[in-house]
């Protein structure tokens, strides 16, 4: 089965070059994924000509405008009706593609998806989900990461929103990682049900009663890197802080190791002896291999790649987006939300 992914080439920190390179490389490897490169067509065309690529797998859709990272998303989209993220979303809405990848502004991606694709009935707020590296592995493929959501789509979440996030996170983990019954938890400052802010306590009560989910209760921050559960649900504010901290720790460890390597011969020797183990840790911490963070809640999959993404990360994001489109993820979320009590799903 062939899936078409619309790749917004214009929003990333490194410009369209990395997106085009990633798409070109993917076109040579995967015959089952077609890509629509969305952006300034003359620029994309010239960049593509510098790459080895399979032309049968690629097409270009022109978008002469795009949303810059510093712009306010709502105003920018209003002022730029042909912004690349809007054109990418329209290509999905009109049936030319089945999912979207963007490395551009998260806010613009959420708004554009909201305008063009619409939300799944019952979803009041979209959630940005990210994978975080863990000590324990997850699912039948023993993935070394867990899913954390929301990591910044919205700042605040009500108890009902947290329940919706739980349903969407569970469906995504099931579709992408092949984990039929993912273990799900709320992030709090204690494992006891009454611990945490009011909306977390309320969400706990609601989730306990939902048999369709494998809800195991609350987890603390230390459980995230341990990987005691497959899906961790939290508000966008807290999730974003946690995610950035995990990324920062990984980078600091890498910098410290490089510094130690340069400073003393004995440390260099020690690091050399540990190199295979360190490489394994590095590969687990390597966000580029995870592709991107899904923005859940829309009628079609939307993948938000890191703004700093290079070609490899964007290529991987396209693979995940294609997989999400092929899976029944959206239908599972729809069905799960439809089965919720009216107070949540309405």
């Amino acid at each position: 089965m062939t899936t078409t992914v619309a790749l917004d080439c214009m929003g990333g920190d490194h410009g369209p070059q990395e997106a085009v390179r990633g798409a070109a490389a993917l076109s040579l490897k995967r015959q089952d994924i077609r890509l629509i490169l969305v952006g300034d067509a003359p620029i994309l065309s010239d960049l593509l000509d510098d790459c080895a690529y399979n032309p049968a797998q690629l097409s270009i859709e022109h978008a002469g405008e795009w949303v810059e990272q510093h712009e306010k998303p709502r105003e920018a989209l209003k002022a730029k009706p042909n912004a690349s993220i809007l054109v990418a979303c329209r290509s999905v809405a009109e049936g030319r593609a089945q999912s979207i990848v963007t490395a551009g502004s998260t806010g613009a991606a959420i708004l554009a998806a909201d305008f063009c694709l619409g939300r799944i009935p019952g979803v009041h707020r979209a959630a940005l989900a990210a994978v975080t590296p863990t000590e324990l592995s997850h699912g039948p493929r023993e993935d070394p990461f867990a899913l954390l959501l929301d990591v910044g789509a919205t700042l605040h979440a009500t108890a009902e929103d947290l329940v919706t996030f739980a349903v969407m996170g569970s469906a995504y983990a099931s579709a992408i990682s092949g984990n039929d019954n993912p273990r799900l938890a709320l992030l709090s400052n204690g494992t006891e049900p009454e611990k945490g802010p009011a909306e977390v306590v309320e969400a706990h009560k609601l989730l306990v009663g939902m048999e369709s989910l494998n809800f195991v209760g609350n987890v603390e921050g230390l459980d995230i890197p341990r990987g005691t559960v497959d899906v961790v649900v939290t508000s966008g504010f807290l999730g974003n802080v946690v995610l950035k901290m995990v990324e920062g720790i990984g980078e600091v460890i890498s910098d410290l190791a490089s510094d130690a390597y340069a400073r003393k011969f004995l440390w260099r020797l020690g690091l050399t002896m540990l190199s295979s183990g360190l490489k394994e840790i590095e590969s687990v911490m390597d966000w580029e291999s995870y592709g991107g963070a899904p923005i859940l809640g829309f009628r079609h999959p939307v993948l938000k790649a890191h703004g700093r993404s290079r070609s490899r990360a964007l290529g991987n994001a396209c693979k995940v987006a294609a997989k999400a489109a092929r899976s029944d993820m959206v239908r599972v979320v729809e069905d799960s939300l439809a089965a919720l009590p009216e107070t949540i799903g309405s």
Partner: protein
Amino acid sequence: MNSEASPWRHVYRWDLDKTYLDTHFEKFSRMVRIAFESAEEKRNIPGSAALLRELSADGGEDVGAARVCILSGSPRQMRSVLEKKLRSDGIVWHEFELKPQWENIRRGRFKAIRDQVGYKLPLLLSSRAAMSGDVRETLFGDDAEADTFIYCLYADIVAGRVDAPTLVRLLRSMSAYPDAIETCLDAMAQLDPFEAVERIFIHLDRGTPPAWFAPFGDLVVPVFNYFQAALVLFTEGHLDAQGVLRVTRAFREADERDTMELANLFQDIQRRGHMTAGAMQRLAAAVREQRSATLEGEVVTVCEDRFVALGPAATRSSLGSTSVRDWDELVDHQRRRPHG
């Protein structure tokens, strides 16, 4: 050179390996198997036979016949197998040159076994010298070795843009044997300058990025397949709409391409400036006129959508423009080629 009007309407020169025949190999075992394949076992590049048949079809007394010249680096020992293969494809040829590899070995000319420039250029020039001056040519090669370099050099020599001392210097820098240089100079002396080479199609067997060919100028059209070549040849008046459809059908059947893939291939050749909007409209109109061709009609509709989707990139055109080639730079460029 004979200055009488040419009896030929056009000359089409084709390489065989990786241009007409699919002789791509990743493994040594496949390379050995190719050398011993029978005519029946030989595989075409999808659409190559259909395209060559269309190009060489008899145009009637008014326009004259097309001359098909085949120049291959395959050894002469393969002649009977290759001729049988071409005949079974319905191809009629007028020249068919194969490399004298056994003679190269016997004479200890080991450089000549791999050399393409010193082999192909003298034969191209000699063939041209034997023709009348006003016939134009379209050349087909691939990106595996030096076809682009050889064909462009040939085009510039025939057009009088490369003089004898420059040619000698270039051929020496490419390690050509003295007798090859001598043959080139003899043939060159018989030529009146004429802009004979109209277009050079390079089949991207190795997937070389199209931008690599830019220094060779707009004469060169890198194509991923013969569906794309047929579209360009339609634009330039070598094929009519029915011819394009026949090549498309053959390509589609041989390569199992669906509508979306064909539309993407169309957009690729179009965005690279090798097919004009006018040609697109003419093709679309011709396809719509024949009501039975629903499949092709569907392809054309999607192609039109892809055309619109390109926005300002849709109006770029490289056809008809010329560029001056810097041959010293091109020697270096050729040496640095990908897959070299």
